[in-house]
């Protein structure tokens, strides 16, 4: 950012650190950085400690790879949850989304990524191998692929199906169809074709 030479060096460093976070552009990084000199030392410390606390205390669950403080995580150690079904998602945030829906009481597996042929992200770059190992214990009977209905998510689902299908595990895919409040007129062909395929009696 050579066009703002008047920015003091410490602020510049903070801006650059914020800018490295996902979803933060150069402008959105400046906005929280400039007011920092006016905040109390307490508030500044609280921020740094909160960041460090996350880094020190949060780890990946050794079973499902979700982010957690206790290992195994709350979902994996909860005996009331179904141990025979595992829902495979791309990111920890997807676990929250599925929990919010309230319709699922099984296990999770977080891949921390998705196969992306366009960018060259292969099976070695995401946590698929851990899923295969989990299945070897024999308790899991169904794997629900809950990756996004994008090209990358579909590629991942098909890959996992190909990997696990021959082992006799039931691999299922989330239904694809119209979102609530959608406009049929603006719906793309793929979604509409899938919605027709997956239609149900009412």
């Amino acid at each position, binding site marked *: 950012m050579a066009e703002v030479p008047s920015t003091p060096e410490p602020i510049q460093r903070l801006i650059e650190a914020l800018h490295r976070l996902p979803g933060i552009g150069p402008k959105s990084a400046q906005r929280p950085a400039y007011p920092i000199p006016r905040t109390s030392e307490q508030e500044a410390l609280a921020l740094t400690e909160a960041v460090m606390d996350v880094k020190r205390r949060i780890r990946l669950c050794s079973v499902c790879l979700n982010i957690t403080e206790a290992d195994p995580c709350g979902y994996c150690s909860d005996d009331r949850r179904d141990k025979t079904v595992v829902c495979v998602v791309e990111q920890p945030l997807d676990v929250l989304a599925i929990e919010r829906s309230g319709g699922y009481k099984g296990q999770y597996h977080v891949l921390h990524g998705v196969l992306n042929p*366009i960018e060259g992200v292969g099976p070695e770059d995401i946590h698929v191998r851990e899923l295969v190992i989990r299945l070897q214990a024999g308790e899991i009977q169904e794997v629900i692929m809950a990756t996004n209905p994008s090209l990358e998510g579909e590629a991942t689902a098909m890959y996992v199906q190909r990997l696990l299908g021959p082992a006799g595990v039931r691999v299922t895919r989330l239904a694809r169809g119209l979102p609530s409040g959608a406009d049929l007129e603006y719906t793309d062909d793929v979604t509409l074709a899938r919605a027709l395929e997956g239609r149900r009696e009412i």
Partner: protein
Amino acid sequence: MSTRPRSYNTEGVVLRRRNLGEADSIFTVFSPTEGKFDAIAKAVRKPKSRMRGHLEPLTRSQMHLAHGRNLDVFTQAETIAAYLTVRDDLDRLTLAVYCCELVDRFTVDRAVQAELYDLLVDLLEALDAGAPLTVGRYFELRILASTGYEIQLSRCAICGGSIPEGETLFSVGSGGLVCAGCRGSAGAGRLISVRAIKAMRFATGATMGQFAGLRLEAELEAELQRALSEAIRSVLERETNSGRYVEALAGPLQRPVHEAPGDVQ
């Protein structure tokens, strides 16, 4: 003030998508009338977006764009063909993505190459209609030819002499087949079989449909694949992402598990 219209229509195939900020995405599109270009779709990652499904990679769409300061902005998009069969099969999907990456790497922004666009659409349609995966080899040969790297298959690439029937040196650095007498002056290369030479010669005069009708044995198919991906790598001076991905899919999960799964990477 310029008098150019504020917006324009074009059709195109979406080659790739990159996310931008909270909810926007940048799409790379290859169009028969505009060439390859990047454009922004605003709020396309929000669930209520009307354009999202029409701009997935590998979709052929009719698009309406407004000129922007840096990048143009999509205002409407409607699918022409979504190639559902391609999306439902991992091998077809991977090949289609590989061909899209080739188009992306062999073209420069806003250079119109209508012939190459037709080739890409032909490929997607053929794959969607169930053509064998060998059409990928046809695509590789044709994209090399249409971007100025045609492989010399009829005469020696160095002396112009005739090529006697038999195993012949295939040297990408020299431009194609090299006769026995010129081998010393050719760079690195590989020997290829008569059958492979014939298949490639056939491809230069055939349509994609005719080539798809050719029954290639697995061994010959593998030979062509090795020779052509080497040619592509040599021209691009790099590996393709999707090429590496294909290799990763072929040898899945060979490495030991990450030592400490408890560590956040």
